[in-house]
């Protein structure tokens, strides 16, 4: 296997033609990206946009294709469709589940909110848009695909509980009963929602799946629960699994993460790192020492691209981050080059240039070691 394989982490900003206002500037942008990325028959889409003769489903398929081509044109080894057909990672997942009711917006920070749901009865997968989404991507992708899914712990942690907490429990203190309720909620979401999706994807040919668990360390005393739930959803499944956790205190993962049956762990590092060149000291990657000390047996995908800034990391910075990470971790063959997180908040121009440099930087890092 080549050193420093490159991959993305899921989301990408909506394609220009999925925006609300479809004016001439959007059509020009669609034409520009179609040509630049080598999207086959993009002229058909442009023509449809001009004639206002399209369906929403058609546009979503085109968006999926554009995003796949963006990742491929940048040169990534493993790609996805930028989640162009999804609402966002939480709501999209739970919209397909029976027993869930969305209650309204709650604050995440400042004016940023999300539509938060309550679990009202035992959750069950009622719809599965992931399979057709994957099938479309599989038909069109020229590189290996990795499908991102939101993990059961995050789905539970980001939801209200109106079911498990209300079930009669005869023993234990209030704290113990609530702990038990949370555990049941996480495991039901694992068994009834996420695992069936994984099985259906694998049955349809998916062999790389990324489980997004940004909430994994929210409650330090529940990190073990997150790992147990992860192991439950991947039990006996023949696929390569990545866990993605971003903007978290990674020290809290230990020792629980050592039990996770994952092949890769993707974490955010670039956001905490300096942008100056150099391989000797890089504060964003200090955390890798902890992974080395614990002799983790999975590969690590430390982010070398910051997704929260328009700064385009030069290839040399990507190189230095990767070589430094490899040195700290102690095993270059288990370092994967990727972003901190999905590029959903960056414009396509910025996202594309970042990915191009990710690939270039990984290439020169590879040459340095080989």
């Amino acid at each position, binding site marked *: 296997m080549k050193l420093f394989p490159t991959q993305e982490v899921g989301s990408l900003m909506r394609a220009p033609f999925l925006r609300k206002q479809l004016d001439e500037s959007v059509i020009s942008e669609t034409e520009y990206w179609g040509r630049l990325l080598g999207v086959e028959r993009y002229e058909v889409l442009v023509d449809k946009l001009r004639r206002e003769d399209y369906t929403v489903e058609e546009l979503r398929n085109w968006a999926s294709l554009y995003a796949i081509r963006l990742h491929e044109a940048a040169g990534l080894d493993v790609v996805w469709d930028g989640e162009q057909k999804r609402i966002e990672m939480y709501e999209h997942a739970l919209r397909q589940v029976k027993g869930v009711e969305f209650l309204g917006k*709650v*604050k995440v*920070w*400042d004016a940023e909110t999300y539509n938060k749901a*309550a679990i009202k009865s035992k959750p069950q997968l009622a719809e599965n848009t992931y399979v057709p989404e994957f099938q479309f991507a599989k038909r069109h992708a020229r590189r290996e695909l990795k499908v991102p899914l939101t993990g059961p712990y995050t789905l539970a942690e980001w939801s*209200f509980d*109106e079911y498990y907490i*209300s079930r009669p429990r005869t023993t234990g203190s209030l704290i113990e009963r609530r702990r038990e309720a949370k555990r049941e909620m996480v495991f039901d979401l694992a068994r009834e929602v996420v695992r069936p999706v994984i099985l259906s994807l694998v049955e349809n040919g998916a062999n790389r799946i990324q489980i997004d668990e940004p909430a994994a360390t929210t409650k330090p005393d529940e990190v073990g629960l997150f790992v147990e739930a992860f192991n439950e959803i991947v039990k006996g499944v023949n696929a390569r699994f990545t866990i993605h956790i971003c903007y978290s205190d990674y020290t809290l993962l230990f020792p629980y993460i050592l039990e996770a049956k994952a092949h890769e762990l993707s974490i955010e590092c670039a956001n905490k790192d300096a942008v100056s060149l150099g391989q000797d000291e890089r504060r964003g990657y200090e955390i890798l020492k902890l992974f080395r000390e614990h002799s983790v047996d999975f590969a690590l995908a430390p982010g070398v691209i910051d997704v929260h800034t328009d700064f385009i990391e030069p290839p040399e910075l990507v190189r230095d981050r990767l070589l430094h990470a490899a040195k700290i971790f102690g095993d270059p063959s288990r370092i994967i080059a990727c972003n901190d997180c999905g590029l959903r908040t960056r414009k396509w121009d910025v996202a594309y240039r970042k990915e191009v440099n990710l690939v270039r930087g990984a290439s020169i890092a590879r040459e340095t070691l080989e």
Partner: protein
Amino acid sequence: MSLLRVVGWVYCGLALGIEASHVGGAMPRSEELIRAFRRVAEGREPYSSVLVLAKSEASKLIEMQRRLGLTYLVEGQLLWHDILRPFTELLEGVKTGPLTRWFDNNLFYKKPIIVSNILRTTSILEKYVFTDLLSGVNWKLILPEPYTFYRLSANQSYSRWEDLVLDFAGILVEELKTLAGTGPALLQLSAPCLAEKKLDTDQVETVKESLRIVKNGYNGLLMVHLFFYDASNAFPWILDSPADVIGIDPFVTAPELIRGYSFERSLAIGCVDARNSHVESVEEIGYLFNSFAECVEARAYHLTTNTDLEYLPRHVADAKIERLAEAYRILGGGLS
């Protein structure tokens, strides 16, 4: 609900002396107000448009609490992005730092970076509180407890953390003085960091000193609210602090660890869970209230929420306030 049990609780509530009920923190914004804030953030509207809408919502919120018979009314703190933000943005010596997780919630605040000794050079609260709606109202204000403020900041200036805590306490007093005419009848200092773990003797002394500074500079009731963590971590020293009311979060506090304590002031029990959408029945509230009230012998008790209601969509928060007030009435307080 069993009539017999309710009658029992009413008797129990009266016997235990429930003297007040109030909301335990900031309110969620309505979806309309959220959208207005987003438009301001994107530069599409001036801040004044948010002010008009927030003030109208604050006014309705006050009216709702008055109608329901709550003892101390909040104006919702709808302009505050987080409880530290007015101080983060307006104190000299503080810079706005990165988004940081708010305890164990999917909620983030901007960390105050203390770059030099903190100094109050402008009035802060008058820019964030609709004081003109509160004239003649028995109202409650929620502010960060000084030690908690220090713990949630990044101190790059003070060589002794104690000085930062005491300086912040002094600033709170200065701010409260600016509200003198329309000052709050109840000041809640939100203090999760006092319960996060057991503090050592020096830390406890500094906390007590900071609370003394606030208490001495302010005429109303001082409440220290311990939430998110087991309040027993701050027992028994917190009972000996200058606070008039100690608030606890019964959803995370082990009753057996505070059983048998007594003190001559008031205990506020946060029997409505502000972090879950399940709207508790009066029966559930009563059961929880009594199971904690019988553990700690206090002069009187307050019935409140365990923390800010901003973790909920607005309509759920409103439903919880209505239920809180209903429980308060049935348990023997308020309008009854």
